[in-house]
């Protein structure tokens, strides 16, 4: 079974919830209870077509307002794949939820209303997909039924999309296809109304995606806890529990640890009662080392090679602001990378990015909710991390407000 994580994004009323409902319905993945709900709601509203949006909008306020407020996670499987869909809200004020939803995804589906073409939100969604370094993006030009399944209309929007992609100058694999979630065209079933489209359906594209493990990255291990055990099976056991952030480690490898800079050799890689020869990205294991060196929560273990050299006290980063209270130059925030923590201060706000024309840098004196800005940060103690462009998993951090404890920003180290 292949596990594929997808995120969906669209502006309000682009039909995102209906698309997901359609995907589940036509894959025969709805439960009897969901089917009953769809039929009942469709009847209440007096619609001709099934109201499939009711499957995902989980909160009372969402159903009342007909919009998605927070990320919903939807699970379904087919014979070969298991899918986790993070259904993120489209409205600009919920951009923060979209960042959350898309951050763990491999592929994002961006919906575009065939009547409207690209909107400001579409640029934002695409920019965030690029920022989050997703493996691919699928543009679904939805509501084709409302433009009489017109090929010219689709081609016109496809050109808009291609221009947007090339303007950003980033290489990301993408696909564009015409769909109607309401009627079911090209979601799972090939459209009979759009014979002019000969490409794959959304379902076929999704089944073609494979998750990639970042094993080629340098080894980074984030120590969550130190375990001591002294019992009948273990004498003086000392191990470091954590998750492999990136790369691979084998028994016998020489490692360097931060913040101390001390080196040692891996003597054991343990997962519960199993002793493993190696562990790679995302694995939760316990490492033991040959020497008694100073390691605690927040330490990083790396291979003792040339890449593991830098601890930083100052860095530049792109930050997406997630809080209603804006950030100012001089704002003090808790900086958090995995288990590593430090106080930080915004030294300067360099510029804010306009997602609709990302090369156009705006100057600003503060970072407001949903702003994407470049800042200089100063840390109270040195932290070992990579640049986001070199090592995605070890280059991303959270910013936490020390007063309210709220998660106020997510950052990507330059």
């Amino acid at each position, binding site marked *: 079974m292949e596990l594929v994580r997808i995120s969906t994004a669209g502006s309000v009323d682009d039909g995102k919830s209906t698309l997901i409902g359609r995907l589940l319905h036509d894959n025969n993945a709805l439960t009897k209870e969901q*089917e009953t709900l769809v039929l009942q709601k469709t009847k209440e509203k007096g619609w001709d077509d099934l109201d499939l949006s009711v*499957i995902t*909008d*989980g909160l009372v306020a969402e159903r009342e307002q007909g919009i998605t407020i927070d990320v919903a996670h939807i*699970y379904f499987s087919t014979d070969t794949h298991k899918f986790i869909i993070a259904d993120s809200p489209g409205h600009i004020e919920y951009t923060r939820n979209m960042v959350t939803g898309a951050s763990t995804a491999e592929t994002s589906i961006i919906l575009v209303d065939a009547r409207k073409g690209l909107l400001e939100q579409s640029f934002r969604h695409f920019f965030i997909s690029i920022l989050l370094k997703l493996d691919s993006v699928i543009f679904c030009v939805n509501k084709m039924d409302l433009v009489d399944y017109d090929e010219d209309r689709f081609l016109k929007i496809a050109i808009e999309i291609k221009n947007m992609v090339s303007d950003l100058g980033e290489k990301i694999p993408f696909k564009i296809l015409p769909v109607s979630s309401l009627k079911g065209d090209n979601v799972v079933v090939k459209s009979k109304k759009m014979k002019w489209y000969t490409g794959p359906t959304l379902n076929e594209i999704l089944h073609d995606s494979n998750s990639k493990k970042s094993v080629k990255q340098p080894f980074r291990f984030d120590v969550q*806890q130190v*375990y001591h055990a002294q*019992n009948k099976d273990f004498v003086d056991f000392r191990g470091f529990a954590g998750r492999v952030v990136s790369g691979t480690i084998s028994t016998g490898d020489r490692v360097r640890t931060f913040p101390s800079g001390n080196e040692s050799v891996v003597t054991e890689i343990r997962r519960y009662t199993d002793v493993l020869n190696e562990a790679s990205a995302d694995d939760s294991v316990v490492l033991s080392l040959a020497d008694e060196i100073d390691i605690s929560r927040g330490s990083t273990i790396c291979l003792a090679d040339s890449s593991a050299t830098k601890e930083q006290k100052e860095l530049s980063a792109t930050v997406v602001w997630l809080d209603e209270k804006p950030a100012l130059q001089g704002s003090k925030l808790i900086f958090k990378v995995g288990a590593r923590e430090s106080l930080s201060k915004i030294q300067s706000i360099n510029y804010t990015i306009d997602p609709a024309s990302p090369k156009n840098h705006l100057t600003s004196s503060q970072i407001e909710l949903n702003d994407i800005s470049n800042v200089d940060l100063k840390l109270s103690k040195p932290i070992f991390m990579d640049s986001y462009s070199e090592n995605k998993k070890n280059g*991303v951090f959270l910013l936490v407000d020390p007063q309210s404890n709220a998660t106020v920003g997510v950052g990507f180290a330059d």
Partner: protein
Amino acid sequence: MTNKHLYKLENESIYILREVAAQFKKPVLLFSGGKDSIVMARLAQKAFYPSKIPFSFMHIDTGHNFPETIAFRDEIVKKLDVNLIVRYVQDSIDENKVQEEAGKYASRNALQTVTLLDAIEEFGFDVCIGGARRDEEKSRAKERIFSVRDDFGQWDYKNQRPEPFQMLNGKIQFGENVRAFPISNWTEEDIWTYILQENLDLPTVYFAHQRKLVKRDGALIAHSDFLNIVESDEIEEQSVRFRTVGDMTCTAAFLSTADTVEKVLKENMASKHSERGARIDDKRSESALEDRKKGGYF
């Protein structure tokens, strides 16, 4: 391990459990003896081995549980060598903090919230680890992994902390409390596949057995002293099993002959019904669970 997909989910859950243990002062794992909490117990074993599980287990006992589940709960806790705290809804009723519901649909499910919040205060727990899954119900699908609750245990869905890249922020003010959900991304099928893979024991009610039942509104409910039986109820005996195990009064049985994990797994997957469809409490309204959650329920 052969199942790549389960290995990924296990990695994620172990990571979350370790973050809970590291970020909070006094965690507790909510443990009912049901299948999800049994999987949670195994994950906790794996996460902290060779150290001991660094927190107590707690059960909010409605007094209406299946006796088989309670017996099983005590047995597994002994095997794991963890401390079990039990707090009783009956005590909250006796203290006049909550009132027993009346009528034929009376259930103690919603009353649990008061007992739970009292227990959190009594022991000063700053985080409760729960086995809720996002695939269970629509409002559950909206939960974060760390769900911050205020002084009153309330869930504010508009004010949830973003968790990009699964980076978890468990910082809270004094009096606040977090509900942590390590198996958020598991589905019912994953749970059963994992039970099979890990060879975990389950209470007997999960497997087909002969039972005296009350047929009401098309659902089969276990016959017990806790149920207010009315004239229109039909009483019959059948071979059934329970797919989800809550209170005897509000969990419906399925006709089944599946008596092994393999058979249950096969039968569940062939069924188009959802697991939560057997929870009679959720059928009170479309937002029944969301309403309970906002009030501090799990």
